[in-house]
């Protein structure tokens, strides 16, 4: 028999994959073929960063890389770069997880903001070095800002609707003997 914690973990992984598919689907809908002046937020990155800081075991690196790489391919981005940057950002936040668990939300938001902006700058720089034709850095930064604006909403939804919250102390002690 599988223990309930593992079942829950796999359930949430499946939920993450389903949410990513839904996001991709919404992005692909041919509703708006006019170029927009303000690029919308990168909701997948919001979701990843929000979950990684609450329950890092719900998003293992293979799932993260798979999801973002499919987005890279489907949304006509240069494959690999953005995935690598999101992976690095998520790992950074994951390693700070114990710290940010006790932090108020404002600090977490600032941290995610710093990671997002650094990742965006690195993305622009790498594409410029490789002489890939890409959107201007200003537009990319505008997207980083809209992503940050969407972040609290994603956190709220995943915490109170989907139930992705920091593991309580009881859960941690219960988990410890299982390994």
């Amino acid at each position, binding site marked *: 028999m599988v223990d309930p914690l593992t079942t829950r973990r796999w359930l949430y992984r499946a939920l993450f994959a389903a949410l990513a598919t839904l996001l991709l689907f919404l992005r692909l809908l041919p509703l708006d073929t006019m170029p927009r002046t303000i690029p919308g937020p990168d909701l997948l990155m919001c979701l990843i960063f929000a979950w990684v800081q609450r329950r890092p075991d719900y998003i293992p690196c293979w799932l993260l890389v798979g999801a973002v790489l499919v987005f890279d391919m489907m949304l*006509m981005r240069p494959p690999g770069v953005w995935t*690598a940057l999101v992976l690095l950002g998520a790992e950074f936040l994951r390693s700070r997880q114990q710290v940010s668990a006790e932090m108020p939300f404002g600090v977490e938001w600032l941290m995610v903001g710093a990671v997002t902006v650094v990742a965006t700058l690195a993305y622009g720089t790498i594409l410029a070095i490789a002489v890939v034709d890409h*959107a201007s850095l200003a537009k990319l930064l505008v997207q980083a800002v809209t992503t940050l604006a969407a972040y609290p909403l994603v956190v709220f939804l995943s915490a109170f609707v989907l139930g992705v919250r920091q593991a309580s102390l009881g859960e941690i002690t219960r988990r410890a003997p299982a*390994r």
Partner: protein
Amino acid sequence: MATDRNASLDYTRPIRRIVIGTLVLCLMALFLLWRIDSPRVERMRAALVDRVVPSFDWALVPVTKVVGMVEGFQSYARIYEQNQELRRELRQMKAWKEAALQLEQENAKLLDLNKVRLDPQLTYVTGVVMADSGSPFRQSVLLNVGARDGIVDGWATTDGLGLVGRISGVGARTSRVILLTDSNSRIPVTIQPSGQRAVLTGDNSPVPPIEFVETPELVRPGDRVVSSGDGGVFPAGLLVGQVALGSDRRLRVRLAADYERLEFLRVLRSHSNEVIEDPGALIAPAPIGPPDPAMVQGAGNG
């Protein structure tokens, strides 16, 4: 479980670092591969899109239609004004239609008199827009026709009103159309009536600018812009739009195609023109006696 390594064990952290480092290296290698051998990776991408998007199709179509219906419902509020406006437009259009019919007849007569032969091979395949690029920095749509319908990279696409873009990336069942507004789009155009040649350059804005105009003084806002067929990219004479002066004093083109709702697109089959390569040989008088096969060949080429 291999995934909750980040807890407390000391030896797991270096292993995790190695795993992450390897993953990042693999991803950067993929990017480098894409940079070096773009067509191969793009073909992989087209194959992936070809597999994924048609499987979304059952959901894409109803959702798009429902949103369209909601938008249509909102427009009921303004139905009276719209009706009035349409009536006014219809009256104008009737006058124009009469003029167009007369001109068409006249044109047909003149063409007949001149024995002009228009390109008879300009036929089209109509496709339905399935999905857009999904990214705010890329302007493209995905059609439900692909290599099995005979679509070839580089063909022009119109929506019946004006040029929309060109095919770039063909899968078995889908093909991607790079819109004129995409920042990768460069189209040679002619500005009528002055006949200036220019290049229409997409820049992710709804009104793309035109560049490399030789004498901009001759170009006035309101001039018609048509594709020029330079470089054999496009068939000539497809309507692109009208010149407009942007707020930044650059010449821009207001596109004729209805970019707000791209639903059905026509992919124009264009066949590569025959290219005349050799300068032509000397036509010598036929030699007396049995003909030399080499000479016959040479004369045939000329």
